[in-house]
């Protein structure tokens, strides 16, 4: 696979995880330091299913996502009712526990040596279509009442409760969905790099996705997607800066957030309406 395609494919896969974080942290203000662990779960479970148990890819993917969602339900159930910073702490602990188990269960996971010999099953088509579907899903989700509920809960939980919104259920739903996104991204990555190791899924990775969401703009889906592409491509683009690379990357983020405290794109959304309107017969013009 060509270099550009390799990179784009990783960006697409990671963007899906970032979209999960967008729903969870951007829209709902829930900070999870364990999202990467869900990615790891997706990666390990699917890889083990395919490599050790010869399951078909699609089935393995399904199982992996379900496992991640199931664990998200458990973690969410225990922690989403209590204070928000508890959620951050609990997800952090969960992430540590998951990577701990990955390291410990050497017979199944290969431990610190990682799990290799994964076949290359992630095609560019699969990755890019998946990203498109994911974006489309989040877009629809946000436009629906779930989006408004998210905003309401984020800014005043009590008021949201007294108007009938089941805040706990909502948060759980979002958390489980975001876990599914992360897990699926993990699957795509695992079958792309063909090697996974526990160290890939630490809390720093989760934090990176949070940064991406806020960099692009937590109130803008367009911003999140573009921010995600920019920041995921940046390390490659900045290669020429050699050892300064990561520092420059950090400075870039700091500068942008300082200049645009609501993220690069603020609340701006790319709209296809003007384009669509071009194709619409004149008489059908909507009356606003």
């Amino acid at each position: 696979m060509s270099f550009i395609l390799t990179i784009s494919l990783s960006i697409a896969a990671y963007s899906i995880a970032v979209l999960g974080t967008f729903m969870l942290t951007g829209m709902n203000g829930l900070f999870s330091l364990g999202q990467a662990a869900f990615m790891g779960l997706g990666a390990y479970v699917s890889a083990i299913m395919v490599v050790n148990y010869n399951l078909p890819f699609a089935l393995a993917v399904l199982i992996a996502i379900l496992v991640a969602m199931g664990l998200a339900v458990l973690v969410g159930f225990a922690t989403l009712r209590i204070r928000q910073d508890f959620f951050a702490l609990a997800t952090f602990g969960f992430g540590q526990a998951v990577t701990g188990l990955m390291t410990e269960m050497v017979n199944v996971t290969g431990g610190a040596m990682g799990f290799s010999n994964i076949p290359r099953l992630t095609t560019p088509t699969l990755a890019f279509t998946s990203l498109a579907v994911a974006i489309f899903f989040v877009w629809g989700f946000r436009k629906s009442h779930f989006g408004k509920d998210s905003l309401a809960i984020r800014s005043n939980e009590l008021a949201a409760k007294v108007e009938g919104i089941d805040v706990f259920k909502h948060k759980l739903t979002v958390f489980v969905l975001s876990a599914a996104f992360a897990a699926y991204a993990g699957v795509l990555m695992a079958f792309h790099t063909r090697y996974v190791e526990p160290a890939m899924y630490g809390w720093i990775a989760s934090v990176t996705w949070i940064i991406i969401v806020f960099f692009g703009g937590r109130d803008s889906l367009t911003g999140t997607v573009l921010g995600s592409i920019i920041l995921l491509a940046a390390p490659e683009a900045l290669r020429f800066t050699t050892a300064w690379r990561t520092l420059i990357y950090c400075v870039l983020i700091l500068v942008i957030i300082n200049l645009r405290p609501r993220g690069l794109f603020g609340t701006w959304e790319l709209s296809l309406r003007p384009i669509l309107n071009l194709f619409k017969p004149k008489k059908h013009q909507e009356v606003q």
Partner: protein
Amino acid sequence: MDKAVIVDMNHLTKMFGGLCAVNDFSGHVKENQIIGIIGPNGAGKTTILNMVSGICPPTSGEIIFKGKNLCGMEPHKVNQMGIARTFQNIRLFEDMTVLDTVMTAYSWRAPYNPIETLFSSPRVARFDREIKEKSMHWINRVGLTEQAHAVAKSLPYGMQRRVEIARALASEPLVLLLDEPGAGLNQTEVQGLVDLIQDLFSDLHLSIMLIDHRMEVIMQLCEWIYVQDFGKKIGQGTPEQVQKDPLVIKAYLGEDISNA
């Protein structure tokens, strides 16, 4: 014609640490009735509404609504059963327009799950359109038509109160709890509010529990009034009775009520 009791509060007590905010309060609201709760600051009025709306569970006592005890029920359940409220300290959502704010009150009725939003099924579209229309209706009712697309939090204080009322109405409740809706309105505007509540009341067959310190609001609207002081009920009755009650005058109204 005797109306049936819709919310029955029995021996409600709420302690905060050593402080008894509400002490053995009993009372009820009947169908299509407006009752008032008055009393000095800190008397426990808001706390009563908080208990009814599920925000703070009573230390003891029970609240019967539709044959069920609301105590220990979560706020969203209480709302879904048909009790909506406004807040004394306004609680609006950051960055949301008036319309969006009001629409969220319909969320829990949505018939679709998150996955369906992906396909934008007709159900999703239809529901969203319907609640938009309904929400606009409530916004019109409280007179905020022009402000529908303004960010709720940037509105002047008086209008923010009306956003809260619209949001509560959008829950399509049987019982409406209003905590000082008249605060921050001038004397002419207060009259407008009274008329609004009166209209809503008769159109929607609501039951209303009302807290206010503006006597013109309470006296014009309420059929029955409970008077609280230091957490204790010190009197109840029709507006006329309460106004003449010496205990109430001493604890709450003061000798000279003409200014109020």
